[in-house]
């Protein structure tokens, strides 16, 4: 994750409180989704950015997680996301993020 985004996430977590923030990912590959999820929960695994050594423990979900999909506007989902839902491995993506969430998130939905 680039350094500016890490800083913005750190700022938001500090401003609003980690328990009030939810991170949603739209990654196309499970490995990338897992790295993003690790960064916002356990800290930056590359030790390059502002989140290095900072375990925010934010609740993080892939947008394809059923819990999140259930909260989406049905019409907008159909129009904006359903196409990618058909071509991507949604279970693998949601599962990769869930693994990190289960290990490192301090709160969940």
């Amino acid at each position, binding site marked *: 994750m680039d350094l500016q985004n890490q800083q913005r996430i750190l700022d938001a977590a500090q401003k609003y409180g980690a328990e009030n923030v939810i991170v949603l990912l739209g990654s196309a590959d499970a490995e990338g989704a897992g790295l993003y999820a690790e960064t916002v929960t356990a800290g930056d695994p590359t030790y390059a950015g502002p989140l290095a050594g900072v375990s925010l423990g934010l609740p993080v979900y892939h947008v394809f997680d059923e819990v999140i999909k259930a909260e989406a506007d049905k019409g907008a989902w159909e129009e*904006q996301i359903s196409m990618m839902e058909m071509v991507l491995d949604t279970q693998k993506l949601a599962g990769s993020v869930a693994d990190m969430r289960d290990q490192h998130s301090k709160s969940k939905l």
Partner: protein
Amino acid sequence: MGKLSGKKLILLGERDGVASPAMEACFAGSGAEVVFSATACFV
């Protein structure tokens, strides 16, 4: 009231997956506020 109501959303989209504006459109009526939104591009 939905589970996202009152929450602050950080949206990290990806151009080859689901971009952030698409997520914003889907959760605009959820009662949550988008506080940061970015779309990565790895091309």
